Every structure is written in structure tokens, then in C-alpha cells.
């Protein structure tokens, strides 16, 4: 497919009287790892949430790998197409608390994509192995460390093989040595080729992981740093 993997134009979003995004324009090429940086409340997480179909907006268009969502009330079919294109890793992992790590990864394969169970489990094990947490496959989320939960959450998002992966503050729950490890994992994820958009305020991590860094301030994309 030609054109950028992600194209966001003129995105305005407010909640109540609060303007959160005020005209975001953003283009990400396939295979890029783009870091969105900015202070808390700058709007970077909201951009990810819009791309994941979790927020509606008043103005603008969003195009992710040809799945287009327009302003206004959410159209279920469009949102559903958008969600086929993106995977999201949440800041607090948001693993399904009642299921062991392996089932967290297989659940969508089994029930959304109707993958046969043996195949789904083999894929989940491969992903957990690739992320170095295969030995924790039977553990419940509450038994995992922050870093392990992070990796299981990445495996869960990758299970359905989305062309675009969104990550919100992925280093928030990691100690410093683990952050650089994660940076290399993130870079390897982009090799498929896959497009990654990462919201973070961790400069070292952004520098190590991203091919391009964008500053977000007051609900706008301010500048591009690096390449």
C-alpha cells in the first residue's frame, strides 16, 4: 500500500470546556518508530487513544493503513476496521486479571480471529519467548513484575499482528536497566515492517528506540527532532 501508515489531519478534541487537542497534524511512514514526547497533559496519550478508536473527536480525520475515521460520533464499522490495524500497549498494562499470561495473549486470537486453539497457543508461546517471558506463561497478572507484565501486554497486542503498534509510557514501570532492553525490543518490532508510535517522557528511551521524536505541547505537534 502506498502513502503513510498513519495520517492525522486537523485533529481537534475537547472534553467539557477543556481543549485537549487543538489541530494535530501527524504523518508516520511505514516502518518508522516515532516517539511522542511532552509534559503530562500535553495530549500525547490522547493522540494514541484516538488512533486506537477509544476517543471521538470534533474535527479532523484519522487514517491508519487505509482505515479512515472522521469527526463526530463514532461509526462502529469504521472503528472496528481501525482496530484491526492497531494494537495498543497501555501504560498500566491492563492485562485481564483473571487469566494467566498465555490466555491473555490467546484470547483475542481465539474469540475475535477464530484461530484454532493449538495454533493460537503456539503463536502466543512464540511471542512470549521472543519477549523473554515464556517461563511466566502460566502466571496470573498479579504474580508478574512490572517488566514482565509490560512484555505480556506487548505480546497480547502483537498476537493479532497489527501493522501499527501504539505504546503509552512503556518505560513507566521499568527500572533503568530494563528501559534500554525495552528500547531494543521496540526497534526489533519495527523490523517486520511495523509502524510504532510511542508516547513517552523518557528522553533516553526515546533517543534509543525512536527513529523520529515529536514534541507535543498544548495539544499540538510542535517540532520534529532527529530522524
Amino acid at each position, binding site marked *: 500500500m502506498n502513502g503513510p501508515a498513519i495520517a492525522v489531519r486537523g485533529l481537534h478534541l475537547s472534553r467539557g470546556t477543556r481543549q485537549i487537542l487543538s489541530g494535530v497534524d501527524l504523518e508516520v511512514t511505514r516502518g518508522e518508530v516515532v516517539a511522542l514526547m511532552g509534559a503530562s497533559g500535553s495530549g500525547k496519550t490522547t493522540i494514541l487513544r484516538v488512533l*486506537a*478508536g*477509544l476517543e471521538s473527536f470534533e474535527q479532523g480525520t484519522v487514517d491508519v493503513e487505509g482505515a479512515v475515521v472522521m469527526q463526530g460520533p463514532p461509526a462502529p464499522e469504521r472503528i*472496528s476496521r481501525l*482496530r*484491526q490495524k*492497531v*494494537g*495498543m500497549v*497501555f501504560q*498500566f498494562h*491492563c*492485562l*485481564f*486479571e*483473571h487469566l494467566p499470561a498465555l490466555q491473555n495473549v490467546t*484470547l*483475542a486470537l481465539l*474469540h*475475535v*480471529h477464530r484461530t484454532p486453539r493449538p495454533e493460537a497457543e503456539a503463536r502466543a508461546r512464540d511471542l512470549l519467548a521472543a519477549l523473554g517471558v515464556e517461563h511466566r506463561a502460566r502466571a496470573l*497478572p*498479579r504474580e508478574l513484575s512490572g517488566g514482565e507484565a509490560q512484555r505480556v*501486554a506487548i505480546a*497480547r*497486542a502483537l498476537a*493479532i499482528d497489527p501493522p501499527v503498534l501504539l505504546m503509552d509510557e512503556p518505560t513507566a514501570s521499568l527500572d533503568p536497566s530494563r528501559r534500554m532492553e525495552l528500547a531494543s525490543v521496540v526497534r526489533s518490532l519495527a523490523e517486520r515492517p511495523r509502524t510504532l508510535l510511542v508516547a513517552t517522557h523518557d528522553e533516553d528511551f526515546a533517543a534509543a528506540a525512536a527513529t523520529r521524536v515529536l514534541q507535543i505541547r498544548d495539544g499540538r505537534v510542535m517540532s520534529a527532532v532527529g530522524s
Partner: protein
Amino acid sequence: MWPAGVLAQERPPMRWAGDPEGGAPYVEASPTDPDKLVGFDVEIAELLARGLGRVPQFVFVAFAQIDQSVARGDAEVGLSGIEDTPARRAAMAVTVPYYEFHEVLTVRNADRERFRSLADLAGRRVGTLVGTIAYDLLLAAEKEHGLTALSYDDDVHPFSDLELGRLDAVLLDNVLAERRMKTTSGLTIQPGSVATSHYVGVFAPSNGALRDEVDEILRRAMRDGTLERIFTKWGVWNDDQPRLFTSVLAGDPLPSVVDATGRTILAAESRWEATLAYLPALLRASVVTILLSCLSMVLAVALGVVIASGRVYGSRPVRSVLVAYVELMRGTPVLLQLFVLYYGIAAAVRLPAFAAAFLGLALNYAAYESEIYRGALEAVSKGQLEAARTLGFSERQVLTLIRGPQAFRLALAPMTNDFVALLKDSSLVSVLTVMELTKQTQVFATNIGSWVIPGTLCAALYLAMSLPLSAVARRLEERWKAPTV
């Protein structure tokens, strides 16, 4: 006559127990002055108090509890159409009989030719007042004739259920039956008496001396025509009474209850014999209790899930209707809801007693369950739901695969709690004539005149039902442990 004011200062009032719900002609609130009691038992109480040189003071006690209440000293004497039974003679100090009555069968006019005696009522339902000779007669007839005995807490609903067709006959004493005939036209009292007994006053077993004084006052009133005047005034004087008075005054030994042929029936049993005799009935009643509780809980859980889902996912009008339902069910007594279901809507829908009990408990508990599930659904973190949505799950899948299973684990402990509460609340359905464990225990206790053995057995049976349940719930909780985030 008696300077009552002076006497009242000299001697304490004579406390007497009765149940105004029994109504005329025994004890009832005066139609012209609800604060004043009238009835022949009220006048007999006045007669006794006067004879003792004291003033009467009324103590309200539910009919079935009068013996125990007198025994524990709430009142000195019980008077409220209290029957002369072998068990009562054994457990209490009873006065000489002061009125003779007959147990009579009342049927619908259309059944006048069909149901002439208890033997004609095989496979039929016959109602009466709990803790009476009539109920004991019906229990005996269950075994002998294969009818079904149903006990009521009052003497009005047996007749209304007879008119509605829920019963095929009512066995009660002629005083009650004849009173009912005055207000209804569709019923017939069959001629002939099923059994004969008397009304007596009851005293605590240790109060024999006062009872002897009262016996003397009653005999005097039989001789001088005072009792005749009282019974005539209340329209219950008949040819049986002079015969009774003659026997009492002659000091003849009077059997407490005799059947139509004059044979003494319902002989007193020892407490041990009575316990053995009641044990199967208590176990049967436990089965009713557990069955009713389980069925009600299953429906309550199913409805609770629907209501909770509606409140979490429904549109605004749906939510409003469900909130109204929950508030109505939680805000009004379950007893009232049971009455409405069984008696209130009987003109439109005639639910059988067990069905009304099952529905009533289920509809009430559904409101409580729904609140538990709503809370549990809302306790599942929003982040997990969003994560599921981004993975492509439909809202229904989010509920059934992620939110529901976690909510269920959170709800398990309060649900177990509710089930144990339901097990105990199921005792309320006895007002609909369902013979469950507590009701059966009450019948047992009334019959033997003590709560010690029946109460202990009843508690043991409830615990035998609730403890295993709590244990299972604890094990499930252990296994699942609620998420600690």
C-alpha cells in the same frame, strides 16, 4: 359495687394475655373505640379480675404463643378461645372448661354433597389455624385419609382461600365457622361434629393456687348465670353449655378432646415421643426450605444479572425502570410482597402457595443480587475493558469473556452471604401456608409447650444447610482470589 380505684391501689392488676387478631366474639378492638377491647373473653377476664379483687390489664400476645408467654410470666392468665388439649393440660395449669365447641367442616356450597367428612377429602387440601386441635386432627387425617393439611396464622384466610378454590374444606371450631358464615354466602358448614373440646384459661404450671381460685370464680359464674349472660350477649350460647356447666359443677372428669363417637383422642405424648413423632416432619420441612431457597436463588441470580447488565449497559429509560424496581423491592418488606403475590393478586392470578413463595423470594432477592453484580461489574478496571476493545472484542464479548468472569469472582462472597440470608428469610413464606422449617418448628413447639428441643433441632438443621455452603464458597474464593490491583 367494687371500689375499683381503691382495689387497684391495694392489689396489682391481673395481667391477662390474648390476641385481638382472633377477633369477635373472643377479643377484638371495639368497632366504636379501637382503644377498647370487647368480646366474651374480655368479659370473662373482667369477671375473673373482679372475683380476685383486682383490675384486668390486657397483654397482647400472638395466639400461637400465649402458652409460652404465660409460662414465662408476661401475663398471669391466657384467655383467647384457648383450647383444652391433652398437651396443654400436661404442660400448663388450665382452668375448668368454660365453653364447649365442636370442630366442624366448612365447604363450598357446590361441594356440599361431595365433602361431608374428612374421609371424603382424600387427595384434597384442607386448611385450618396453626397450633389448634383442628390442625392435629388434620395431621392425623393426612395419614388416615390421604388429604393435605394446610396451616394458617389466622382464621380469616383459610375461608377466603376456600372461596378462591385454593382449599377444598376448612376444619375449625363452630364459633369461628359460624362467625364467618355471617359475612359470606358461598360456603356451607357440614352438620355433625368432627370433634368436641372446650375453651379454658391457662396459667403457668407453678401458678396452680391462683388457677384454683379462678376455677372457683368460674364455677360461681356458671351457677349464678353470669357466664350464660355473657355468652348470650355475644350470640354463642347454645344447648351444649348447660350440659358442660352441669358436668363441671358435678366435678365429673372431662376428657379434653373427644371425636364424634365420644372417644378420647389426641392423647398427650411425652416430650421424647413428641420429638420422635415430629422429627420426620422437621426433616421434610428442611427439604422444603432448602429446595425453596435454592430455586429462589437460581432465579434471583439470573434476574439479578439481567437487571445489573441493564443498569450498566441499558439506555436511560431502561435504567430508570430498573432503578425503580430495585428501590421498590428493597424499600418494602418482603412479607408485604409475599402477601401481595399470594392474596393481593389472587383475583387475577391464582398462584399456588409454593410458586408464590418461590417467586416472591426470587423477585425480592433479585434486587439485592443486581446491586451486588452492578457493583462488581463497575469494579472491573476500565483499562481492561479498553484493552479488550482495542483487541477487537465486541461489547458482548467484553462482558462475557472479561468483565463478567471477574465480576462473578468479586460477587461470590456477598452472594454466599445473601444465600444464607435467603435460607433464613424463607421462613417468612409460612404466611402463605408453605410448611417450611421454622413454621414446622413453631407447630412442634406450640404442641409440646416448649421451645427448647424444637428450637435446638431447628437451629441444628439450619446450620447443617448453611455451613457446607459457606465452606464451598470459601474454597472457591481461595481458588480465585479477587484481583489485588
